[in-house]
């Protein structure tokens, strides 16, 4: 008892944020900037911005296996090496060892994890698109899942807030399907892409724009104040940026929170349980297990933000049982862990481009072109599936790699490969997946991990709507590349599982009715209002655009609400 009193004193904060990734970082920033003393708890090891980006400045020849995945790394990181390139020695030490952190695949799920400071914000693709009005309305209109408790207008100011801080390069297009944001100067489209863009508008009335990407093309004061500098166009973002040019928790939100002197970060600490006080009817803190020495500890706060990543957030809630919440914390609706969504990835088409022989590029664009959703939009009505998809892709000149499949060897062959090859172009779809209560994660009733925490079981797969859409992703890609006049159009459709989009979400959804949802319109757990969930778990549907800035906008909005409520003594 004495011990607890002592622990209480040192271990008490205004707010606890579980997780340091994209949304956790933003929660810490917003809460500390509003005056709260915050403890951020990260289950993985500490990574220091810039100094721990150990591969960032390596020369190509300094990688022993030149970027290929070794058999050892493929075995240790069996899940994350399912994503092309993530097993490579450029990044592999910054991704989670799946062998040491196993999960059970009842149905195969590609769960890509990064257990360290900043989480997956260190590795994200940086594509940043606002949702459209339709994305918040579709569930209600179509009778799918449940209705969002918010609309675009609720999130709009928070998108702007996030975009200003993050720094997003993009082109305003005035499209309803893809609302404009607050942009830094856009990166250019390459010559064959401009040709493609013009053809698509001319033949299909489909807009094409350059990707909206969280790389600083022209840093503003808000960015340089944190030591962030302009993109150097190396396109080696995945190693961690030594210039802080792309946004991550490490380059952005954590330093911003740190400069308030109100943030403490605890590393190597797995939150095993949310502590619920049956008398006060509120969560009072969390219990952690040190991942290295197995010691447990309790921390306390007035409010708790769960930002562990959608699967881990749901697992933590399910593992937090009390008299009040015998089915898992906040799980009266039985929706915690369900409605697991992702985006479809891995299908599209490529082609070779005749001409443009004297067009070339200096520098590497860490970005792509973007084709906004055109299906089930405007006059288009698909009979075989709901919702739609966007394409990301781009044109590039072939490098020496073209020699691998080309005929020949010897002097001329060698000489020829030193020059830029022909242009080719590739577009790949990102498709919306519908919420389905049978797509879920749950805790294994018997098996436990080495910290004694029940193991997570993934039980999700694409359904009919997804397969029908996927067919169209391939067919439309072929049609568009052919229409643009490109040659050797080849479709691809890699066999993938859910999860490969690395956009897992939906496992503690927002909604209006506590009977069918876990969170309310401000991301509060319906039945325990001082706990907020603002990572991907909160998502009621998935849209087809990349989700990170939506997570951040939801987080900033919820943090603002939480602090106002605290001040009004409503929490």
């Amino acid at each position, binding site marked *: 008892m004495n011990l607890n009193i002592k622990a209480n004193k040192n271990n008490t904060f205004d707010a606890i944020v579980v997780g340091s990734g994209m949304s956790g970082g933003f929660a810490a920033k917003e809460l500390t900037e509003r005056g709260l003393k915050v403890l951020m708890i990260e289950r993985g090891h500490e990574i220091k911005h810039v100094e721990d980006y150990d591969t960032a400045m390596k020369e190509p020849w300094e990688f022993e296996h*030149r970027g290929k995945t070794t058999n050892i790394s493929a075995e240790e990181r069996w899940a994350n090496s399912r994503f092309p390139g993530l097993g490579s020695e450029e990044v592999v030490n910054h991704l989670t060892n799946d062998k040491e952190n196993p999960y059970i695949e009842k149905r195969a799920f590609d769960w890509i994890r990064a257990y360290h400071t900043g989480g997956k914000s260190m590795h994200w693709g940086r594509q940043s698109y606002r949702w459209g009005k339709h994305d918040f309305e579709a569930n209600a209109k179509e009778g799918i899942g449940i209705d969002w408790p918010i609309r675009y207008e609720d999130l709009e100011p928070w998108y702007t807030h996030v975009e200003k801080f993050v720094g997003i390069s993009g082109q305003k297009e005035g499209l309803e399907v893809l609302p404009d944001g607050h942009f830094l100067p856009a990166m250019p489209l390459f010559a064959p892409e401009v040709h493609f863009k013009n053809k698509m508008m001319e033949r299909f009335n489909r807009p094409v724009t350059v990707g909206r990407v969280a790389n600083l093309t022209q840093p503003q004061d808000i960015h340089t104040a944190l030591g962030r500098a302009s993109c150097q166009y190396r396109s080696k973002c995945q190693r961690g940026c030594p210039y802080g040019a792309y946004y991550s928790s490490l380059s952005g939100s954590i330093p911003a929170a740190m400069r308030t002197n109100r943030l403490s970060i605890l590393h190597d600490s797995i939150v095993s349980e949310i502590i619920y006080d049956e008398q006060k009817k509120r969560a009072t803190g969390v219990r952690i297990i040190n991942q290295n020495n197995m010691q447990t500890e309790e921390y306390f706060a007035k409010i708790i933000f769960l930002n562990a990543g959608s699967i881990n957030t749901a697992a933590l809630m399910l593992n937090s049982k009390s008299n009040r919440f015998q089915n898992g914390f906040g799980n009266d609706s039985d929706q915690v862990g369900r409605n697991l969504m992702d985006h479809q990835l891995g299908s599209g088409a490529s082609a070779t481009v005749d001409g443009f022989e004297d*067009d070339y*590029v200096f520098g590497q664009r860490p970005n792509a072109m973007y084709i906004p959703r055109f299906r089930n939009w405007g006059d288009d009505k698909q009979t075989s599936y709901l919702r739609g998809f966007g394409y990301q892709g781009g044109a590039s000149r072939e490098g020496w790699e073209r020699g691998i499949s080309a005929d020949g060897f010897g002097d001329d062959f060698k000489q020829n490969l030193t020059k830029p090859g022909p242009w080719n172009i590739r577009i790949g779809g990102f498709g919306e997946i519908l919420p389905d209560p049978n797509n879920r994660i749950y805790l294994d009733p018997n098996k436990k991990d080495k910290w004694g925490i029940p193991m997570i079981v993934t039980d999700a797969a694409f359904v009919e709507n997804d397969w029908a859409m996927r067919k169209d992703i391939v067919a439309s890609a072929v049609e568009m590349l052919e229409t643009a006049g490109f040659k050797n159009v080849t479709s691809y459709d890699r066999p993938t599982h859910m999860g490969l989009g690395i956009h897992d979400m939906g496992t503690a959804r927002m909604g209006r009715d506590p009977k069918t949802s876990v969170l309310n319109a401000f991301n509060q757990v319906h039945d325990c209002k001082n706990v907020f969930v603002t990572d991907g778990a909160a998502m009621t549907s998935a849209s087809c655009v990349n989700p990170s800035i939506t997570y951040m906008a939801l987080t900033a909005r919820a943090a603002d609400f939480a602090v106002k409520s605290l001040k009004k003594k409503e929490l």
Partner: protein
Amino acid sequence: MNRREVIKNVALMLGGTFSASSLMAMNHWEQSTSPNKAGAVFILTDIQQKMVAEIAEIIIPKTETPGAKDVGVPAFIEMMLKDCYKEPDQESFMEGLASLEKVKFLSLNSDERKGVLKFLEQETKKMKSKSTPFWRLIKELTLLGYFTSEAGLKASFQYVQIPGKLELIKLKPNQKSYAY
């Protein structure tokens, strides 16, 4: 397939006719070799190492710029097969070497060696196998090892460590690729 048959087929191919007999020979070629199923650690013998080196050097010969041997490609190939390739590909590689040993590749003259490799390249296109064919393996590893080595990269391309800007440009005549 014996040495004479290989040479005959090579000659046929170089003569421009690609006959059924060369196809059949290729079948023999595949059947005549027994895969190294020991499951042991992937190690090459001295002769095999020599063959790998000679083939890599034929693919990327020394010219006014370094060749495959100069930049350590042969050892790279062996290391990569051991560390990054699974057993079926390792076996496929060993089969390829065994076939070449059978036709005494190392005792062929330079033109004959090139002929054998041209023949192999054509035949590889027709192969349907789950593992990666020998020719594909040695070619991709030679190119990777060479063009990403410090000397090979710097001799072949204009190396730009930090571009600092993104610019659409027009290619000058004979301009080399940028490498980053």
